[in-house]
């Protein structure tokens, strides 16, 4: 005799509920109780959950119906979503695969000097450049050069796309308070949603063998800071300078290109730095869905309990992170300096 029976009959709902021709599978608790040969005895007043109410009234769902419903709803929407999203995101697959091929196909004696040269061009700092060269050689010495390049190619593509989309979105947000109000909760959601949760719907939508699957997961996670900081940077531009721009008759485009973006650049660069760091963090998790690179070795370390492999790959990721952080930070301070020369 379930606890809520009396309440339903008191409310005159017994007929609506129907007879207890319960064909639904038993709950785990019931099953265990049956095995022990006794009626399940919960607390005095069971919590009014779907399952407990269902015992008294057949019309009420069971909790598993909720998760089932979500799943079925998603699967029903999947064909439509797939026909729309598949072609849109296809270029991402091409870019990721192309970059991967490019980074792997370029011989190391061209790639390493090139990376060092880029570091020098971006940072104009000798210690940073030397550090980059030493780190890459360290990775190469322990035969992690190839996987490091794979990871780098993924980050390169994902960061580029994040910036290409994030900066315009940030600009649009800075122009419209209403847009900002509606986008900020979405950004909060993207930033707080556990990273594994991104993967679940994506796995259903796309094939695990497609590279865009991890591409989308990384971009969704990493695009947030560049949007936020572009918006903030433009909003923080000195109002006096904006007024001067207006007073000399600049149009909106001139104001954006000549005043707002250059003055917001340090903030935007800080956003890009964060975006790089976050895509690197996501790259390990993305290896669960077939992203190549250092993450795969970490995963191997966990799965096969190969301690050394996991730790070496982990240190490789740290080295990569420090390289990317130092180079982009040095570029940021350089931009800052050209702005305010004291």
């Amino acid at each position, binding site marked *: 005799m379930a606890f809520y029976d009396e309440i339903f009959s008191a409310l005159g709902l017994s007929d609506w509920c129907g007879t207890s021709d319960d064909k639904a599978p038993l709950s785990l608790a019931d099953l265990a109780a049956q095995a022990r040969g006794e009626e399940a005895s919960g607390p005095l007043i069971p919590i009014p959950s779907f399952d407990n109410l269902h015992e008294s009234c057949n019309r009420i769902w069971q909790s598993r119906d909720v998760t089932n419903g979500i799943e079925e709803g998603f699967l029903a929407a999947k064909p439509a979503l797939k026909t729309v999203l598949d072609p849109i995101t296809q270029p991402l697959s091409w870019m990721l695969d192309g970059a991967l091929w490019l980074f792997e196909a370029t011989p190391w004696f061209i790639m390493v000097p090139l990376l060092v040269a880029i570091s020098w061009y971006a940072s104009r700092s000798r210690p940073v450049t030397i550090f980059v060269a030493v780190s890459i050689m360290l990775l190469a010495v322990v035969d992690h050069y190839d996987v490091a390049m794979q990871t780098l190619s993924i980050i390169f593509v994902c960061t580029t796309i994040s910036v290409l989309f994030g900066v315009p979105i940030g600009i649009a947000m800075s122009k419209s308070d209403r847009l900002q109000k509606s986008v900020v909760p979405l950004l909060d959601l993207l930033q707080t949603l556990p990273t594994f949760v991104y993967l679940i719907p994506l796995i259903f939508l796309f094939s695990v063998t497609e590279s865009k699957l991890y591409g989308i997961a990384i971009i969704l996670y990493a695009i947030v800071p560049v949007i936020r900081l572009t918006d903030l940077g433009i909003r923080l531009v000195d109002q006096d300078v904006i007024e001067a721009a*207006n007073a000399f*008759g600049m149009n909106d485009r001139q104001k954006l290109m*000549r005043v707002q973006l250059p003055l917001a650049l340090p903030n935007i660069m800080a956003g890009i730095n964060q975006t790089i760091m976050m895509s690197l963090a996501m790259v390990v998790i993305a290896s669960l869905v077939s992203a190549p690179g250092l993450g795969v070795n970490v995963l191997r370390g966990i799965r096969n309990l190969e301690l050394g492999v996991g730790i070496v790959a982990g240190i490789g990721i740290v080295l990569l992170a420090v390289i990317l952080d130092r180079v982009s930070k040095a570029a940021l301070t350089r931009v800052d300096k050209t702005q305010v020369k004291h």
Partner: protein
Amino acid sequence: MTQPMVRLSGLYKIFGARDKDVLHHVQDGMGKEELLAQHGHVLGLNNINVDMQAGEITVVMGLSGSGKSTLIRHLNRLIEPTAGEIIVQGEDVMQLSEDGLRHARQEKMSMVFQKFALLPHKTVLKNAGMPLSVRGEPEADCDKEAAKWLERVGLSGFENHYPAQLSGGMQQRVGIARALTANTPIMLMDEAFSALDPLIRTDMQDLLLELQKELHKTIIFITHDLDEALKLADHLVILKDGFVVQQGEPQHILLNPNDPYIEDFVSDINRARVLRVRSIMTPLVGGKVPKDAHGEVDVNDTLESMIARSGGDTSHAYVVKDGEQTVGTLDMTELVRALVPRVASEAGARQS
């Protein structure tokens, strides 16, 4: 008199969401405090009627909160008025389309700001050339014009510095060069020298007067400093709580303040330095020149120089000349009397 360069008539500005709805209260004579207390709106400008003549420096003076910065921003519509007309060169600024307004800002009015408002990421040369490059002129022309005006304000050699590398006074010179490069007939100067220290400020005032002697721009200058106002003004407008207390020729206002507020203002002024002979001389009637004159003076001499010249002897009298023409006589006794503000002299009379 010819058409003024800028005419403001019946200009009202009320800050708040329902400014048009509460306008009639102000027009019926409600004051700033009442409006704020009863309707929660702030009165910015109250029935401003000012004509600004071409080639003159019109100085708008008032304390903080008097609405002077609000006033100057109406000329190029950085602030939209609640009601009223703004006529610039015979054209109603309020009727301009967005493009027309931008055009007017580019071609008719340039502005100098209290906080300089230079672009920190551009060199001094590019900053000064900004108004031209906004109009889309070739870079070489912008640089040439900018370099010319930078030299004119005494900044040659600093073209490739960044604003933050310059002192405040030099930054404001860049600001002035930028306004001059725009080559507009009207220059709006919003407390342009207020952020500078006193010595630099005097330098900049001299620079402005020197440039003005040559360029004959229509300058609208905002300041809270009466000394500065009297030094620069051809036409002085005194604002208080958003309305014009008195306007006119500065010497006239100094000698005939029509409001206790202005009397307070002018009481601390070094009158000998500001007043000129023409304001206090006795105009010549019937061509009679006193025989005992001690010499000839120019109408535009300051009283300070007269005191020095007479050695402080109040019995002297001088013939006043405007160029070749004799226009009046100056009695040193009159001069001494003019040095005492009217309020003070009345107070003195009551005591005795």
